[in-house]
């Protein structure tokens, strides 16, 4: 029963959110709030690192769909990294890999922001 936690790392022009635990209909508001805070600070280059995320349901996937348009309009992006195979499968089942960039590790995700 580990609940859900987010920690944040700020780099030059990129911020990474590290999710851990369970992202479901109960814990989704925590994740939404974290993204909202970034947008309020005009941070649009976002990496969501899921290394320690044990579980995601469609409620969690919804957060990505809910914010991505606004973020891309501002010239930013949400890039995903470090998905466990269990979590990746859920993203994959719904076709997320065609619409979101998913990287093995955070550094690669970071470099993709810098290149663009």
């Amino acid at each position: 029963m580990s609940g859900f936690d987010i920690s944040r790392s700020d780099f030059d022009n990129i911020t990474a959110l590290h999710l851990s635990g369970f992202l479901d209909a109960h814990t989704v508001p925590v994740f939404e709030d974290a993204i909202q805070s970034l947008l309020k600070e005009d941070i649009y280059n976002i990496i969501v690192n899921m290394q320690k995320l044990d579980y995601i349901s469609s409620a969690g996937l919804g957060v990505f769909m809910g914010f991505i348009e606004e973020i891309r309009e501002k010239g930013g992006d949400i890039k995903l990294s470090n998905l466990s195979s269990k979590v990746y499968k859920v993203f994959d089942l719904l076709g997320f890999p065609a619409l979101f960039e998913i990287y093995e590790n955070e550094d690669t995700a970071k470099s993709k922001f810098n290149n663009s």
Partner: protein
Amino acid sequence: MKKTRKQKFKLKISSATENLEIIREFINNIATKAGFDEESVDQIELAVDEACTNAIKHAYKYSTKRMLDISVFLDTEKMEIVIIDKGGGFNPDKLPVPNLEKYMRAAKVGGLGIHLMRTLMDEVNFSINPGKKNQVSLVKYLDRKSA
């Protein structure tokens, strides 16, 4: 340590998202004991989460005074999970196939749950009787390779 061939389980639990974790572990434990491989256990767990989330959100509109009603039927060939709510019901045949690109542009956060259930499970059947008994039955067979 012999195994009982046919089993049923019934869980009634307050309709609260905070209980999803308890429900998932309960389902996970039964599915594991039933002999499903890890991937199938994960799939069953997620499908049940989606169905319960729908009952909490749509049928009971987050009123934690209502109770979720979850039954599990186990035999040597399959596991069936039945989730019942007494909410307003809906028409499961009229749901669009989710279009992620459209959803993203419209900042739509939902509409994936039932599609996921259908992808994850071998059989998904609804029986809707608004205000009385809306039920979704989720079935996974033991011998089939995961979807």
